[in-house]
């Protein structure tokens, strides 16, 4: 064949890098539609505002690969944000931040215990926690907005508004965390165990892998990411409502799926999740630039999710339409 590229090569390429290709096509399309799209400040802006979603998606990637779901991250993020803002004025940022991390990790540990050790269904557990944590947040704050009293006099703003060498700190945190977690998932024994547990939990157990502990750790990681996201959010706005994270759980999930993680567990990577997050961010921004209302993005996201996942599995099975009779 001319050029030596066969049909199956293209299929394989699509299967492996379908999301990446879709992403590139997207960027080209929007760039043609609006010259501002690729302007550095715009790109930077999109990445920065995607950082919070992105940080949360990193943790959820672990949970999803381990074969579970986490619908509580949005509600948990509200909790972290409110707690750190409240404690900031009470005990100072240097104590407030670790205290908030500990509290959020406790929530993650609780979910991890329920799903990992008690083996309760993660969809329902995290759905329950979505509601329960919201209640907890309201109890904690008394339902009031939380605001830092002296916004000008604290270094707390650095996480959300600062920048190092011209790179906004949220992007930096996102990048570092992604690199770290990417290596944990892709290169370490723990990462391998996550894939095994998600791929076939029974076989993993029969191979001496402590399934419960692996699942538990995934939720702990997820809550760690949520706490980080809450920190960025709190620092970015220096004040917040109790519902700041509401609805983010589904956006996060959409990003992870868009990145190609299978909800059945056992597949997905951090890199692909980042692509998923960026696609969502750039769609939102791109549509806005070409003058569409924000809800147009819902419809486009729908089409893109379906197409991306479809092409992905179509390439794997070697035919476009499913063999379902």
């Amino acid at each position, binding site marked *: 064949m001319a050029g030596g590229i066969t049909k199956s090569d293209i299929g394989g390429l699509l299967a492996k890098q379908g999301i990446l290709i879709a992403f590139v096509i997207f960027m080209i399309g929007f760039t043609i539609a609006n010259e501002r799209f690729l302007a550095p400040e715009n790109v930077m802006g999109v990445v920065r505002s995607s950082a919070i979603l992105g940080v949360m998606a990193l943790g959820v990637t672990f949970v999803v690969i381990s074969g579970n779901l986490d619908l509580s991250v949005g509600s948990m993020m509200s909790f972290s944000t409110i707690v750190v803002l409240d404690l900031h004025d009470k005990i100072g940022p240097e104590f407030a931040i670790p205290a908030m991390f500990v509290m959020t990790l406790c929530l993650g540990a609780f979910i991890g215990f329920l799903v990992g050790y008690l083996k309760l269904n993660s969809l329902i557990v995290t759905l329950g926690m979505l509601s329960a944590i919201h209640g907890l947040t309201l109890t904690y704050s008394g339902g009031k907005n939380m605001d830092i009293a002296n916004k000008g006099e604290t270094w707390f703003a650095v996480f959300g508004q600062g920048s190092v060498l011209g790179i906004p700190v949220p992007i930096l945190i996102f990048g570092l965390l992604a690199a770290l977690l990417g290596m944990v998932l892709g290169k370490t024994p723990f990462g391998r165990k996550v894939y095994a547990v998600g791929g076939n939990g029974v076989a993993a157990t029969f191979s001496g892998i402590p399934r419960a502990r692996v699942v538990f750790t995934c939720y702990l990681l997820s809550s760690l990411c949520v706490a980080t996201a809450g920190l960025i959010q709190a620092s970015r706005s220096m004040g*917040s409502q109790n519902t700041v994270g509401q609805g983010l759980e589904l956006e996060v999930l959409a990003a992870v799926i868009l990145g190609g993680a299978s909800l059945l567990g056992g597949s997905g990577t951090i890199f692909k999740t980042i692509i998923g997050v960026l696609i969502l961010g750039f769609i939102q921004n791109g549509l806005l630039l070409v003058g569409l209302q924000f809800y147009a993005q819902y419809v486009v996201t729908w089409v893109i999710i379906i197409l991306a996942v479809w092409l992905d599995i179509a390439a794997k099975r070697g035919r476009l339409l499913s063999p379902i009779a």
Partner: protein
Amino acid sequence: AEYRIGITQNNVGVDSYQTTYDKSFKEAVEANDAVEAVVLDAGGDVARQIAQIEDLIQQQVQAIIIWPTNGEAVIPAVRKAHNAGIPVIVTNSNIAEAGFDFVKSFSGPDNITQGSRSAEIMCDKFKEMGIETTAQVVQISGQPGYTTAIERQKGFDDRLPEVCPDVTIVETQPGDWNREKSQKVMEAFLVKYDKIDGVYAGDDNMGVGALNAAKAAGREGIIFVGATNFAVGYEAMEKGEYWGSIYQSPVDDAKAALKTAIDVLDGKELPFLNYFDTPKITQDNMSDFTKPVF
């Protein structure tokens, strides 16, 4: 107690105003030996609110106060209460006109006036700056379908051309009374429009969200005017980042609602619309007001 009153609120806990209202209402009931109250929260869900009205009717409370989630959808439920002989008082945000026949009284702020006043605050400031002929304004409105939002927007939209005929409102988008949503909306405005001189937000919570977006993007010199002065708005005014707002207290709001209900039960003659006063507040006169508690 003499009277048993039921209240179903819109969405407690979603922002400070509603939370403070909820607290103040309970405190006001506590302080008054003559009343007991069943205090419910619809969580923003119309279906739940209708169910709650039905529950209150079924529990045979003597009056129902309702903070509607949707000014239109609750009308049939209100009619049901009316038909059951239970007087209904609407609080904070009115229901649509079709339902006025079934309501004894409305208690809350005059939102059209609020909108007009915000327009005046903004126009005065523009005049002071000398840009009243060129200024461009964006508007972030409250939750769509919510009477307060509709009225404030109408008040603003109608009044601004009267006082500053050359100022243009380039775009209006809803911010759902939500700071983060408003911040997102403002980010989009900033990307889209190079020239923005003023921002009118349906409340300070959203106003501050917009302010945050502008600060993050490094855009200065924008005049922010809101409504329902929140503590954050007040502070931003102290810092000189935020120009003005409308002073409205949820404590007054809650007390007024309870008082209206009691007055109705006492058989007093009341006007249909019971407004409590909501004055203008700007950086110039803010020292006359105490800092809001919410």
